[in-house]
């Protein structure tokens, strides 16, 4: 509550806001109304959020990056909904992404992408542990958890490579694809149960909407590019951890900053997963 109140202090330039705030302060916080004085955290000479400029910059960058992803996802939504009721309906993702390595010919909708999601979220957990170890200045633990995070990122990228290969193998291209199903095949697909055997003949397939595959490549590709750069940055920071750069500096804030980026990439994936695969 106190944090929330301080965060709004920058509105102090509005006289009405100042008045209401001090009224509220005397009503609610009778004991320490002195804290709500003009010497607020916004008065200069310090960071109002108690963060270094670097961490603030990372937050601001992530805000801006969120808008980039939003533009792609909004574009995806607009194009997908323009196919509502069209003669070439948008393919059901569960019928397209139903493969799993070594489980040839089985209908396992979204199982693999769920595994990918789990791997990425788990790598966020190890990243949190690395940051926490950093607060305790435990170099060994930071290093170990960062290795796990990097491995998680690489595993995710590997999964994505497999998924792209499978997608391309089945005929997904930037400029065309054949993920549309004839009405008989569609009826058959809808009747499939989890783990059923399925094999589509060429005759079952019809060209799907072009943007289905192009958006798949763009959206997951742009995200994958972020994961890849995250892995590279994590490796650089991990090298610095091992070399003792942050131990000498006395704090592991850099780990925290790349952690913010890593969690963001993770969060974006949750949206990609929801909007592209689940819905």
């Amino acid at each position: 509550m106190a944090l929330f109140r301080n965060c709004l202090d920058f509105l102090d330039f509005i006289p009405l806001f100042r008045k209401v705030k001090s009224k509220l302060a005397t009503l609610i916080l009778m004991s320490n109304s002195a804290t709500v004085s003009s010497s607020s955290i916004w008065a200069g000479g310090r960071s109002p959020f108690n963060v270094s400029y670097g961490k603030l910059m990372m937050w601001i960058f992530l805000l801006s990056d969120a808008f980039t992803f939003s533009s792609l996802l909004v574009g995806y939504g607009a194009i997908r909904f323009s196919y509502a009721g069209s003669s070439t309906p948008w393919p059901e993702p569960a019928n397209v992404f139903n493969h799993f390595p070594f489980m040839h010919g089985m209908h396992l909708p979204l199982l693999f992408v769920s595994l990918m999601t789990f791997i990425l979220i788990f790598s966020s957990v190890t990243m949190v542990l690395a940051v926490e170890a950093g607060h305790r200045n435990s170099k060994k633990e930071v290093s170990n958890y960062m290795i796990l995070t990097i491995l998680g990122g690489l595993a995710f990228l590997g999964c994505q490579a497999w998924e792209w290969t499978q997608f391309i193998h089945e005929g997904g291209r930037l400029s065309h694809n054949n993920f549309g199903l004839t009405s008989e095949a569609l009826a058959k697909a809808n009747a499939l149960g989890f783990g059923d055997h399925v094999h589509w003949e060429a005759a079952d397939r019809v060209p799907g909407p072009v943007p289905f595959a192009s958006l798949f490549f763009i959206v997951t590709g742009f995200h994958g590019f972020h994961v890849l750069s995250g892995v590279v940055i994590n490796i650089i920071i991990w090298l610095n951890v091992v070399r003792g750069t942050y131990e000498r500096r006395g704090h592991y804030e850099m780990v925290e900053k790349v952690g913010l980026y890593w969690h963001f990439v993770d969060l974006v994936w949750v949206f990609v997963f929801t909007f592209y695969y689940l819905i």
Partner: protein
Amino acid sequence: MSTATIDSHAVGHHGDAHGHHHKETFITKYIFSTDHKMISKQYLITGIIMGCLGMGMSLLFRLQLAWPDETFPFLESLLGKWAKGGKLDPNYYMALVTIHGTIMVFYVLTAGLSGTFSNLLIPLQCGARDMASPFMNMLSYWFFFLSSVVLMSSFFVETGPASSGWTVYPPLSALSKAMPGSGVGTTLWLMAIVLFIVSALLGGINYITTVLNMRTKGMSMNRLPLTIWAFFLTAVLGLLSFPVLLGAGLLLIFDRSFGTSFYLSDIHLNGVGALTNSGGSPVLYQHLFWFLGHPEVYIILMPALGISSEVISTNARKPIFGYTAMIISLLGISFLSFIVWGHHMFITGMNPFLGTMFMYVTLIIAVPSAVKTFNYLATLWKGNIRFTPAMLFAIGLVSLFISGGLTGIYLGNAALDIQLHDSYFVVAHFHLVMGSASIFGMFAGIYHWFPKMYGRMMNKTLGSLHFWLTFISAYLVFFPMHFMGLAGVPRRYYQFSLIPEFGIWMDVNVLITVAAWLGGVAQLLFIYNFFYSIFKGPVASTNPWESNTLEWSTGLKHIHGNWEGDIPTVYRGPHEYSRPDRELDYFPQYEKGNGEPEHYHGPVTVADTSYDGKKEKASTVFFSSFAHLFALKRA
């Protein structure tokens, strides 16, 4: 979470920046400089060069519009195959229009204006040794420079530069064979814009962080000069809108080069589908583009408004009228700018209900804009006005902001827009309110802070002459365009003499072109004054305009870290001019008073007591002016 209290005076490399001396070489001082003052000059010079190029292009295509059937042999020697026989090629005309718009919007009025003055003033007026990350700041400039080079290089490719308008709408921009400029030219345009976005993000992140984190002691948000508030909110707008253009550009690049069809729906020629694949929508591009495009208008305008606020207050020797209202209106404009983009797209077949919603929010922008206008006027009212060139340009901005802003109310109306869309009325509107007003703000800033940047003064007479010629030419060029637009003359047409209905406008087109060339000549005065004064102008005093803000407390000589000793503490707001309890008519923010109140809340004395000798409150004076206006009270 980190528990340490971070103090910008104690942490990092800023606190003791003046303590250690690096050996500066020519390269680290003038080229890859990390000093915000040098980066600001780099932005300014690049902006001026780009501005000359952009204006030069407009002068060339104005020739075509005024004398569509004449030939100008010098054009052929200048442009070669693009002006065979001295007549502009139609495709090249489109290219000039496109690159003129791109240069003016992005390279001059975004980077040249924000880049120059945010870099110069944010650290100096907030009381910081430098930007939060000087290195990123340097990268920001060099990405901008690279972007400028890539854009201009498109003039040297065989098929010419991008020519589908500064908005590069698909399908003209998405199909590489649509017109000559749709080929390599548009690819270069997109590359330039991607580099530009990177530059804008690096700069914007820095500006926001510096304003939030690195203000000196006492510089609370309600003591910030209005310039800083404007730059801060401009950076926020850029940070949230440029990424969307990045997304839009990414999809467009894939459409052009990798066979996707995000922006391509069906195109039929003689009943046969002309595209190998389709399935997207060109309107999607427009939505994404204008989600940037509308905030971009305010990215251009708000720094100019902030600059004129400070210049007007300083040179009227009065506190700015309604400091809080000025900030709230900036916040209001910033917020509204994100939800009005649809007013650029009324005639795309948008649902009329949606159009109505966009119309309402668009018209609401008139409220904060009017608040700002009236506050400028009320600040000028009964001030001890000093007509420096900066002040003239700031007042010119107010004039252009009013006359250009009023037509925004017409264009924001979804029904009227059916007639006015894509006509010269639009050209007139945005050139007055966004183009001219912002460039006037930029000139005000240059004349006002020139002594801070170069330690010398610019010539006042030449400055005033520059103002009057530019002011007259701006109105002569853009005002008649309203009437052309109302009559339905469309923009971007190449040869009006082929359309008999528009023949009656030929004389007006000649007038406009002559006035435009007059404006071009006027800029030569500025160029001469600017570059001459850098080297030969009279040496400035430390605080030549007797201003309150923090940047004038530094020495004339630029040093890394800005202040020789400690960073000054701030004791009051930036506008304590003409306080009756003070001997001097200004009271700098950094000067510790002798028990005077922080802000003077008493009546503002007015120099002229012609009413009845009584001192009156500013608000009384202000409202009584209306009484005079409507002849309700006789003096």
